[in-house]
């Protein structure tokens, strides 16, 4: 076996074992910090069991699934844009999700004064999760429409930036008109794994079960794109259609993650980056390992967020931003030194 193969196996093993160990730590992390003994004590009584099984377990699994969706979409985005610093939020999904959330919050705030009880109820049923999901997908759709499809990578990238700026401006406009929505918007921007329940886990597991095989089937397209668009086209790939399929997979995975946990920063960027650093490989492997690395990263950040200043909690998005930013600074210094 080549050293490449060994590295890939080692990383896969490390990600699997790491996920299990940190998940176990997540189950033992409570308001009084991290305590394995406390976990066994909690399981001995009904209230404790409820906390462990209905709060900590779905939160732990949900954090892993959110990270996996972001890691997968980050790996696919970096392959699609041929840029190791590409982010899954580049396609307009983040700004779309924020606008969706802000619109619902503003509508709910205004509802108390001018909207009828029935309309306010409908807004509540529709909910923030649905608004974020639909907003994220519409953001990507707007990007695709502005770029006139996905044939030109640069058009897609520029359209994503333009959509991001415009939708962010629209969100700001809405919060100016309805300042009550600001606090909710801020919480969404920070990201949180605190509200993940079993229903969220089911949605995300289903989403991962659909997007992971779909993206994996398109991995060879990403491999071919490393040779340039024209060479990939000369190999008989219908790039326009295949790129749109990739964008849809990225958009769906990202929308699902942000709708459940808000805008978790850096996981989608860093997870595939780390995978390629430890075990460079074809995109088939990078997509799978990127998802697992994203899961492990966010799970670790979630456990740290719950325990570093327990019983207070650090917003997990802040922690991932600090960890991700720190990693990039380290990378930059290392490259300069080299």
């Amino acid at each position, binding site marked *: 076996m080549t050293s490449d193969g060994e590295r890939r196996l080692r990383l896969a093993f490390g990600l699997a074992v790491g996920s299990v160990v940190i998940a176990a730590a997540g189950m033992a992390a409570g308001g009084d910090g991290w305590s394995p003994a406390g976990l066994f004590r909690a399981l001995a009584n009904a209230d404790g069991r409820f906390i462990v099984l209905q709060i900590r377990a779905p939160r732990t699994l949900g954090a892993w699934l959110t990270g996996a969706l972001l890691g997968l979409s980050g790996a696919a985005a970096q392959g699609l844009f041929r840029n190791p610093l590409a982010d899954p939020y580049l396609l307009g999904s983040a700004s779309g999700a924020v606008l969706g959330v802000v619109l619902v919050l503003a509508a709910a705030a205004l509802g108390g004064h001018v909207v009828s009880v029935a309309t306010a109820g409908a807004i509540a049923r529709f909910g923030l999760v649905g608004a974020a999901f639909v907003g994220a997908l519409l953001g990507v759709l707007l990007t695709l429409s502005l770029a006139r499809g996905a044939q030109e990578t640069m058009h897609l990238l520029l359209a994503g930036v333009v959509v991001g700026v415009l939708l962010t401006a629209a969100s700001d406009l809405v919060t100016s008109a309805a300042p009550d929505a600001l606090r909710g918007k801020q919480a969404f921007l920070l990201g949180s794994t605190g509200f993940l329940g079993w229903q969220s886990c089911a949605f995300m597991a289903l989403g991962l079960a659909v997007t992971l095989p779909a993206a994996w089937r398109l991995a060879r397209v990403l*491999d071919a794109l490393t040779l*340039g668009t024209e060479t990939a086209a*000369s190999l*008989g*790939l219908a790039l326009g259609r295949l790129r749109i399929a990739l964008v849809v997979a990225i958009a769906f995975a990202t929308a699902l993650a942000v709708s459940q946990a808000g805008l978790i920063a850096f996981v989608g960027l860093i997870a595939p980056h780390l995978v390629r650093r430890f075990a460079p490989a*074809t995109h088939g492997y990078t997509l799978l390992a990127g998802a697992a690395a994203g899961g492990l990263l966010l799970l670790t950040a979630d456990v740290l967020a719950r325990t570093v200043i327990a019983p207070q909690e650090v917003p997990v998005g802040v922690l991932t931003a600090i960890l991700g930013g720190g990693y990039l600074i380290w990378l930059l210094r290392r490259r300069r030194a080299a």
Partner: protein
Amino acid sequence: MTSLRATGIGVSLGGARVLDGVSLDLRPGWTAIVGPNGAGKSTLLRVLAGLRTPDAGEVQLDGVPLAAWAPRERARRLAWLTQQGSASGDLTAREIVLLGRLPHLGIVASPGAADEAAVERAMEEAECAAWRDRRPQELSGGEQQRVLLARALAVEAPLLLLDEPTTHLDPPHQVALARLFRRRAAAGTTLVSVLHDLSLALVADRLVLLERGRVRAEGPTDDPALHAALVEAFEGAIRIERVGGRWVAFPHLEV
């Protein structure tokens, strides 16, 4: 027997006419396309590969318009190597060459024994088998070029369109490449290469001289009228002489 016929090809780029009424009939053997900078050589090769739709005219592959072929079917018959070839990312040289089997495999099927054998043959032919497990960033420009050439060879298409395949190659490897092209041509491949090195181009079977987007001259490489046209097209900066039984182009080095 695979044939490629271009009729009345016209292409404009940014308002400038890059190709104007180019007609070619390409058959098995080695055809070299030469011409001064900006003559439209690379654009012509893109049109022949179906990567650029001409504003005028049509290209037919085996008598069928290029646009009417399904992309994968076309890719199995026609392999293309770009002038600005570069490999990036995390793929090893062998994994890059394996991408040449995509027209046969599609995006899902796993490579079989025939694909592995084609990859090995291509890497041996392009003399890059020794660094199969290395990545592009670990290779020199010439080594990368040989990997990219092996990728094109691995398609095992009856028609090879190569844009400046000798870029970054040192003289021994340029000669090795010319031998490979001769072997492929003798085996019935229709090989079309854009070349800047006129001496190398004169080793081909046929030569097409492009000038300002038009075919200035074409014919067998030992045609004296073609040689005269070459000297004129390159503004007298070269002379063509017979050395050791072969035609060689020498630059006038007086400065």
